[in-house]
């Protein structure tokens, strides 16, 4: 889950009122924001769903509503001259079809403002934009651009990328720049490169890097923002969100025009969806009895404007909320504003009798018998590696087992095919403990049958002690088999993990379901087991 960091000083400034940490954190907790870490200067919050909270201004806005310090819901944008138009060309359609934008004016950028802007634009592209794939954005100094603008996929040409002195070709940026290698594939197809241009040439190679010419600095007062991506909805909603953020920073925002060749329209649209929900339905889902007036106040706490329409409530979803899909999300917000602490638990009348899984109960009974036979239970990871599962057991690995594609360590590369190696590992780690050691495990093992995973329950048990021998394990197994009425035969067999001539196969209906015997000394040595050990393992699903 991504972590968002907030500068406490900047947050306090944007809140505009005094608040101590305890009160702030309590309110954030009640809003559903869990604080991972808080220091003198910073707060870390972990979440995924609310892009509008990725900025400090956005968090300040939400806290202000929640604490009823703000009831201003309208975000007004101005209109630029008609020459501020982005013309979309025909080649971009198959690569990155959509563009939106906005103009920000009258900024006075302090270091911390610039940092905030860079922070949240970057975070938005990485998280909500899914590493720039669905959405990415670029900032340009308005002094250095000459509208109209052109958005298209162009053939290879030259420009000076940000932070460079020399001209580079688009193709060189793709190969020679770190961001080019990371994001290049999103903006290139068949030697055409997605770019935003104006009358003076390339402003940005998208979604990779801007030009040095349009760089933002502390002295920038007016700014053009471009937003590109593969989903029209996502980039246009991002424009709405950015507009709200810049307005809350105290700047003026105005629209620009986008023309896909079917007539220009203005962006940001600043449209918030309207969702109407019967009050009764809302109360029924939450399990409370909230009155009409109260619902409107609760909606306000979450930044919604709300009004009464007969017996229903009409909510205007804030323009900057990108996460609200439908009425379920609104009901959740009302419940959050109401406060989970105030929702009284209500029992569900029911008369059903609970039923356990018969197999699970049977496995528990087998576990009890094993304890009765003197074995203590172990629980081990289902994950293992070829060295433990096969090699240390003197076995060859085939390809009929389940393997991990992306292991983080060499110790977890596959799902175990049997339990005996886990138990021998336990023994190896127990050599300083008092002998005898008798342990068992009753849990899952995995293999593959024609590329379909086969999940089964095994039972394995071992005893480690000076002087143990084949008869001890055979006696224990037969004691168990008798209790479970397993009709099985113990027959001479070969298994590399056991000492030759001291290993038997367990057969049910002439089919092998397991082995028992004295563990091979080489196996013992490889697990660090220093005393003779005997054991058995059976596939419980096969008996």
């Amino acid at each position: 889950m991504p972590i968002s960091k907030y500068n406490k000083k900047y947050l306090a400034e944007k809140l505009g009122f005094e608040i101590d940490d305890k009160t702030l954190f309590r309110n954030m907790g009640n809003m559903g924001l869990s604080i991972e870490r808080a220091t003198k200067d910073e707060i870390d919050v972990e979440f995924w769903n609310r892009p509008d909270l990725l900025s400090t201004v956005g968090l300040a806005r939400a806290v202000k509503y929640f604490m009823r310090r703000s009831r201003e819901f309208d975000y007004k944008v101005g209109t630029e001259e008609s020459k501020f138009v982005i013309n979309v060309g025909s080649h971009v359609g198959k690569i990155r079809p959509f563009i939106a934008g906005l103009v920000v004016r009258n900024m006075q950028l302090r270091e911390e403002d610039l940092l905030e802007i860079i922070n949240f634009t970057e975070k938005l592209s990485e998280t909500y934009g899914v590493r720039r794939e669905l959405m990415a954005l670029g900032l340009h100094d308005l002094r250095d651009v000459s509208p109209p603008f052109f958005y298209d996929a162009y053939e290879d040409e030259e420009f000076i990328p940000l932070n460079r002195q020399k001209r580079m070709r688009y193709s060189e940026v793709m190969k020679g720049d770190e961001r080019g290698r990371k994001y290049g594939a999103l903006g290139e197809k068949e030697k055409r490169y997605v770019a935003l241009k104006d009358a003076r040439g390339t402003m940005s190679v998208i979604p990779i890097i801007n030009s040095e010419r349009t760089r933002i600095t502390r002295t920038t007062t007016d700014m053009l923002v471009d937003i590109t991506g593969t989903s029209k909805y996502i980039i246009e909603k991002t424009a709405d969100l950015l507009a709200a953020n810049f307005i809350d920073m105290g700047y003026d925002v105005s629209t620009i025009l986008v023309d896909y060749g079917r007539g220009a329209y203005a962006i940001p649209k600043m449209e918030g969806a309207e969702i109407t929900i019967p009050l009764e339905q809302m109360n029924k889902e939450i399990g409370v009895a909230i009155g009409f007036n109260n619902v409107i106040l609760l909606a306000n706490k979450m930044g919604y404007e709300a009004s009464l329409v007969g017996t229903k409530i009409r909510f205007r979803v804030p323009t900057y909320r990108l996460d609200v899909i439908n009425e379920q999300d609104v009901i959740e917000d009302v419940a959050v504003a109401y406060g989970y602490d105030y929702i009284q638990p209500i029992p569900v009348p029911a008369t059903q009798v609970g039923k356990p899984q018969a197999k699970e109960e049977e496995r528990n009974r087998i576990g009890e018998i094993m304890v009765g036979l003197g074995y203590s239970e172990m629980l081990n990871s289902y994950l293992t590696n070829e060295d433990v599962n096969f090699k240390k057991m003197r076995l060859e690995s085939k390809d009929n087992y389940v393997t991990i594609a992306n292991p983080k360590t060499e110790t977890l590369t596959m799902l175990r095919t049997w339990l005996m190696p886990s138990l021998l590992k336990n023994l190896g780690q127990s050599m300083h403990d008092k002998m005898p050691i008798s342990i068992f495990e009753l849990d899952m093992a995995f293999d593959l049958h024609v590329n379909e995973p086969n999940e089964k329950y095994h039972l394995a048990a071992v005893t480690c002690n000076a002087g143990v021998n084949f008869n001890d394990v055979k006696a224990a197994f037969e004691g168990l088999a008798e209790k479970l009425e397993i009709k099985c035969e113990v027959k001479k067999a070969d298994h590399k993990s056991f000492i030759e001539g001291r290993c038997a196969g367990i057969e049910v209906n002439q089919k092998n379901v397991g082995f028992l015997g004295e563990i091979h000394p080489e196996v013992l040595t490889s697990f660090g087991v220093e005393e003779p050990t005997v054991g058995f393992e059976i596939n419980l699903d096969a008996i």
Partner: protein
Amino acid sequence: MHRHERAILEILKKEKKLDFETLMKETGLGKDAAMWAVSNLFSRGSVEAIIEGKEIVALTEEGKKYAANELPEQKLIRKLAAGEVVLDELKGNEDQIALIWAKKKGLVEIGKKGISLTEKGSKAAKEGLPEDKALKEINAGGLDAYAKYKNNEIFKELEKRKLVTREGKGELKEVMITQHGVLELASDMQSGGEEIEALDRSMLSSRVWAGKKFKAYNVEAPVEAKEAAVRHPLRNLINEIRQAYLSLGFTEVTGPVIDSSFWVFDYLFMPQHHPARGMQDTFFLSRPRELEIKDRELVKRIKEEHEKAWHSEWSEATARLAVPRTHMTSVTGRYMHEIIETIQKEPDKYELPVKIFSVGRVFRNENIDFKHLADFYQMDGMMIGKQLTLANLFDVLLKLYSRLGIRISFKPSFFPYVEPGVEAYTKFGDSELELFGAGMIRNEITGVKRNSLSVLAWGPGVERVMLLRNEKIGSIASMYNTNIGWLRSMSMK
């Protein structure tokens, strides 16, 4: 009391303290008889004994056998040097031991052509292994040879192989009577007869014990406790959780560990670009890489829901990717789907609400440390019914956790598949410890409007409960990969 014991106590009552030699002379007992009697008296606390110790070394049976001949690996390399042996013949127990040690010491190599001597091996075959020499010298020379070898690697190897043992052997020097001994002697004089030691079958049938005294033991003397065989504490907790669910009327369900991403993520409305679906968090499989999604109609619906809500293309190939489940909601979710489908066709088939639970292992691609494990247990629950509310959810969770002895509270949280979303937490010292996520399953997943059916769901971890209830367990990781010592140290109270 045995007459030997009485004889000793009588002398000691007079003399208080005697050296062992004198004691033997005075009582006329042989060394073994005197030792036996003194050790009995000592175990009952009737005498004190002064023992002076010295270290001795001895060969074990196996050690003696090798000392008389030679070490198995010495024999093996000698035979190899003489060209006498091939690998296939090495089948016996001793041959296996010889092979392991010869390999370990780098004396032999095993290749395609069989077994052959290394340079080191050839040299050792000629000159003899130092371990072999040492074993023979210790056998012949006892302590002097032991003094020569005791601090070097050769002796350590012999000891590790259990060919030699060393122990402190005590020599009984002096014996003195205790207050208890005086009293024992006095009461023995009173009863005037021999006491019964061990009760046996013949005594029971012949009733010879009648009218006699049983010898009193020192019941306060320390003994070594027996180790009780036990079930794993986590298994006991899982069973307790199962009982808690069953007592609340929930039915147990199970399902696949290895599943398609579809049932683990897509069906549960997790966008395909959700960070939890990344390689960093989830194990993907290379065998099997993909699993078929059989319900075509459902695939169509889920594709539509995703594309509508997340504004990006939904890929079935991504949904087919096989994963070891990352939560148990893949199991309860699958059941929920079946139940809702059935209810829509046969509204009276189930008594509502339907309550299910499932306890099982889930997997996360974590760096394993004391806090994190790659696999652990979850105990998901679900309730499917008419007009279920958030207030109902709180009620059932409070009941479940009160059965487990944990007080919980709720705060809002976000999970893609529930709306509203809930985080249950508990007070842990001064801080809040987040326990698990819960909520009402989204309509996009159930495929029905909430006024016809709604679903409450929650997905707690089992290990957290264990940590909260047993302060002795320092970490989640210590519950797995354990040694028997940890298990034996766990209280079952």
